[in-house]
Structures are given as structure tokens and as C-alpha cells.
């Protein structure tokens, strides 16, 4: 596995059972010390923030909490977030499957380079992920003059007439989101499909299946849990991305604000209850993601042993 992939991006996680020697162990006081330090660390950095989100959201009771969700700006942010994820996740899903198919099932030169390149977006700061799209499509960018300013007599006019904008508009947000969630599905599928090998596909072909039949009836059922795993992680990131989207959005309230950006606006307006109310929705999404992820991992472990 290439190093740049976050190590948690794999269903083949270490099994959650106790290992190590039975008799040769640390003294009891060391065990307690380690346990205390570890739980303190988890408490301060993980449990407290999570609890704070829900407490702060409900600080003034349920009325203001629910009021935050009736705000039309909030609803439009929710719609945009869902739309963005609805485009970015399937796009990266298709890409992930295609990339995993050619990398895992075939041998070709430059394969390890390709794997490294697929990982690249993980190494890029979210802010820079947004910036590069501004550079390509923005007013001062490569295509900007053609898209926005109307320098190009024909194409630009047409775009202007159709009112097509990319940066500081929805397409930019979608593109930036696709960039930051780019590797998730591919990263999950490549090692999985490599480990599974080609034998089942060969068997299907010898039995007279066509390429597509082989793919849909043999390959997809074999990788469906890995796919699901990649998709839920990809979706969590797509819905929660802040930095990259912040750069390309232009922060037009009710138009180009996603939920994380909406949180920022509410927070900067000192509307804390509403900010945390929206946050609690995203935190809930995070918890559901973790739950599903854990379930898939359990399943994978049971399947392996």
C-alpha cells in the first residue's frame, strides 16, 4: 500500500482483539498509567468536542435548535451540500472502479506511478485544492478570460448569455469537492481487488460470460463491501469539506454556501446556537459514518476468519 493513503482507509484493519504475550506483560501500574493517558487523550480530543457540539446546539433548548433548520439559507446550504455529494461521490465511484480494474487486473508499466498520482490529492492542502481551480477557471486563470470576462468574442458571449460560471458558483464547488475526495474509492478497491486476484473472472470468461457480465456478476459482488466502505468515507468528506470549497465558493449566501460554509457564517455572526445546530447535523453524519464503517470492518473480519 502506498504510504500517502491514510492508514485507516482499509477494511483490512487490525483485528480488534487482544494480542501479545500472556505472562510477560507490563506491570499493573504501567497498564493503568497507559490506559489513563490514552483515555485522557481520547477524552480531551475526541469525546469532549463531540459532546460540545450537541450541548452547545441545545444550550437554549429545542426551540432555537429547530429554528436553525427552518432558515431558508440553511435549507439552501443543505440542498447544495446534498447536490455536491450526489455528483462528487458517483463520479469518484466510477473513477475508483475503473482505476482499480486496470491497476488490479492488469500488468503495465508505470503502475506504481499511477497509484502514487491517484494518492496525490491526499497530500494537497484543502486550501490549495481550491486555489488550483481558481487558477484554472477564475477571472485571472487560464480559462477565466474565456469563461467569465468575455474576451473571447464568441465562446465568452455564449457563456455569458447562458450565465455559466464555474468559480464562485456551484460547478467550482463540485469540482473542488471531487478533487479532495478523489482517491477514496480507488484507494479502497485497489488492494482489495489485487488480493482477490483474477481467477474468478477467468472462470466466468471460460464459462462463456461476456466482459460486462463478468464485471457485474462476478467482480461487483466480490467488491461490494469495499465499494460501500469507500463510498461512505468519500461521502463524509464530500459533505464536510471546508477549506477547498471555501476558496472557490465566493460565499454567496443562499446560493454558493454549503453546510460547513454556512456554519462559518453563523459562527462569525455570533449566532452560536444555529452554528452548533447545523454542526450537530454534520456530527450526526460523522457518527453514522463511523458506525457503518465499524460494521463493515466487523463484517470483513468475520469473513476473513
Amino acid at each position, binding site marked *: 500500500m502506498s504510504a500517502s493513503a491514510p492508514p485507516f482507509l482499509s477494511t483490512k484493519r487490525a483485528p480488534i482483539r487482544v494480542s501479545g*504475550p*500472556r*505472562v*510477560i506483560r507490563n506491570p499493573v501500574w504501567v497498564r493503568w498509567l497507559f490506559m489513563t493517558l490514552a483515555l485522557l487523550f481520547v477524552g480531551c480530543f475526541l469525546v469532549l468536542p463531540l459532546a460540545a457540539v450537541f450541548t452547545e446546539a441545545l444550550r437554549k433548548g429545542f426551540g432555537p435548535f429547530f429554528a436553525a433548520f427552518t432558515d431558508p439559507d440553511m435549507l439552501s446550504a443543505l440542498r447544495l451540500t446534498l447536490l455536491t455529494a450526489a455528483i462528487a461521490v458517483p463520479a469518484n465511484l466510477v473513477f475508483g472502479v475503473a482505476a482499480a480494474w486496470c491497476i488490479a487486473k492488469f500488468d503495465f508499466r508505470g503502475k506504481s506511478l499511477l497509484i502514487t498520482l491517484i494518492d496525490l490529492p491526499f497530500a494537497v492542502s484543502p486550501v490549495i485544492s481550491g486555489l488550483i481551480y481558481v487558477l484554472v477557471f477564475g477571472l485571472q486563470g487560464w480559462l477565466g478570460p474565456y469563461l467569465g470576462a468575455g474576451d473571447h468574442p464568441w465562446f465568452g458571449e455564449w457563456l455569458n448569455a447562458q450565465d455559466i460560471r464555474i468559480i464562485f458558483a456551484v460547478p467550482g464547488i463540485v469540482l473542488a469537492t471531487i478533487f479532495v475526495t478523489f482517491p477514496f474509492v480507488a484507494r479502497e478497491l485497489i488492494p482489495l481487488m489485487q488480493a482477490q486476484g483474477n481467477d474468478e473472472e477467468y472462470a466466468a470468461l471460460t464459462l462463456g460470460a461476456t466482459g460486462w457480465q463478468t464485471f457485474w456478476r462476478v467482480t461487483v459482488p466480490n467488491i461490494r463491501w469495499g465499494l460501500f466502505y469507500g463510498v461512505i468515507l468519500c461521502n463524509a468528506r464530500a459533505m464536510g469539506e471546508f477549506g477547498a470549497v471555501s476558496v472557490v465558493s465566493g460565499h454567496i449566501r443562499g446560493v454558493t454556501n454549503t453546510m460547513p460554509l454556512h456554519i462559518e457564517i453563523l459562527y462569525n455572526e455570533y449566532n452560536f446556537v444555529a452554528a452548533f445546530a447545523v454542526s450537530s447535523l454534520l456530527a450526526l453524519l460523522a457518527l453514522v459514518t463511523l458506525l457503518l464503517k465499524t460494521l463493515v470492518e466487523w463484517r470483513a473480519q468475520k469473513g476473513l476468519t
Partner: protein
Amino acid sequence: MSVQVDNIRKTFGPYTALDDVSLQVKSGQLTALLGPSGSGKTTLLRIIAGLEYADEGSGRIQFHGEDVTEMPAGKRKVGFVFQHYALFKHMSVFENIAFGLRVRRENRPPEAEIADRVHKLLKLVQLADLGGRYPHQLSGGQRQRIALARALAVEPEVLLLDEPFGALDAKVRKELRRWLRQFHDEIGLTTVFVTHDQEEALEIADEVVIMNQAKIEQIGTPQEVYDRPATPFVYQFLGNVNVLRAQVLAEARARKPGSIAFESEGQVYVRPHDIEIVPYAPDQPGIAAVLRYIHAAGPQARLTLEQVQTRETVEVETSRVTLAGLDLKVGDLVNLRLRQAHSFTDDYTI
């Protein structure tokens, strides 16, 4: 240094690994703990080493009369060689062997002496030039010997080896086990090793401890356990054996087919080479059998026969010269005579 094990019990949850096991390992001997997997032999070895503790209040371990039951592994002066060697990957061979000396708090030898000791040990295991290598650069047999050298570096009084040849291929195994026997004769250290390979145990051990299902079945010299197995299990575990119905033998002796057996319906154990084949004669004692198959490759001929009365199969081993003298072909009727057989009382189950 003798090792005395008294009434040791060890359970892992509902599973009993050792059930009231007692054993005396004599000083300076090479002892094999022999048994199938799951028989408890490795657990016993680990309890002797202090890598596992016996169940609370179950029994005692003594080294030369000193009770070490509660003593931690590091203080017992045992050398332990693990099945997969457990060499420290990040240390060179030299550092691996020196480890036990370097971690000493008291009377840690000076650097020059450590180097001297390590080199002597490397020479002893015949790998004098490999001190600078790392474990991943060694073959399986070399790793095995480095693990041994590492265990010997701390001058243990008991050497314990867990399946010492288990991870090696067949040829290296044979070489290495002869080497271990010679090596033991040179240094004379009390040594216990675990194996599931009866050939290995019988070939090099002074004493063999045969274990099955958490219990010791028999203790004895290789010849004793082979020639006078104490239980049906030992009989079957050490080499091929035919199991015949006692009734058949009784009838064969009486040579009156259909008459009532005078022995119980027990079983009789006969090794293939303890059966003699003679030409069939209706009035002579013996078990009537039909020759079904002759396997004549190798120094000994192996014959498969079918008992006329029970239709059960019997394996016979005989020299090829004897076989030639008999002039047999497949399908011939012969009489079988038992030179040596063993019967156990009925309550044994195998």
C-alpha cells in the same frame, strides 16, 4: 540441572491444555516432548520456561530441588528457542546474541568480553562469519542456530526448544537434528525439546515423553516406548500398526472357525514387521488372508492383505529376500502368524 514437574494443571477457559501432569527430566539428558498438535506439549514447555503460569494452586515446578513455580522467566536461567526463532529483526546477528548480556544490570560483562563470548558462540554454532548479518539475510537453518546461540549466551542451566526443526525443509531438518544431538553431547546441557515428529524424537532423544490430550501417556527411552508401548495411543502414534480383533486371534489359534471366542472382544496391536507370512494350510494355526497388493519399492516390501473371515485389511512388512522365497502373487491365500502382539484392556479408546 534436573527439572521436576509436579501435578501441573493448565486451562484456557473451557479448554484443558494440561491435566495433572508430572514429569522428571534428568540432569544432562536430551528429552523429547512428543505428541500430536493440541496435546499440551508446548504449553508444558512454556510453563517450564515461565512464559505461562500453571493454574493457581495446581502444582509445582522445581529446578534442581528449587521451587521456581512463581519465578519470572528472566530469573530461571533457561534458554528458550522459539519455533519461529523470534530473532530481533532490527539487530544484527551479533547484537541478537549479545542482547542477553547487554541487558544485565548486575555483573554485566565488559564490551571486550561480550564480543569474545559472542564470537565463541558463533563458532560453536558454526556460523563464525555471520556476526554482521541481519536476520532477514539468513537461511532458515542459520536463523535456527543463531536463535540457539542467543539462548546459550546467557549460560542457561536448562535449554528448551519449541519445535526446533518445525519450520525447516526436510533435508535441513535431518542434518540439523543430528547436529543438535552431537551438540548436546558436547555441552551436556539439560535439554527439553518439543516435537510432533516421532522419527525425530526417537532418533535423537535420550528419553521420550509422549503426550496426548493434556496428559502424559508414557515416558521412556526411545526403545522402551517403541517396543513396549503403554497405551494404544502410543502404539498407534509411534509407527504403523495393525489393529486386529482379539476374537480373530483366538479363532486362529483354535483353528475351529465359528467356535466361540475364549478371549474378550478386545483389540490386538501388531506392527507390520511383526507379522510372518507362511503358506496356507487349513490345519495350521494362523490367520487366513488373501494377498491384495505388493509394494516392493524400497528396502522393505510392504504387502496389503485381506483377512478371509472379517474382510479387514492387514499391512505386513517383510524383507525382499523373504518375499522372493515365498514366491507370492496377488490373489494367493496365505497364513499370517504374529511374532509379537499387544493387547490392552477394553476401556481404552483411541
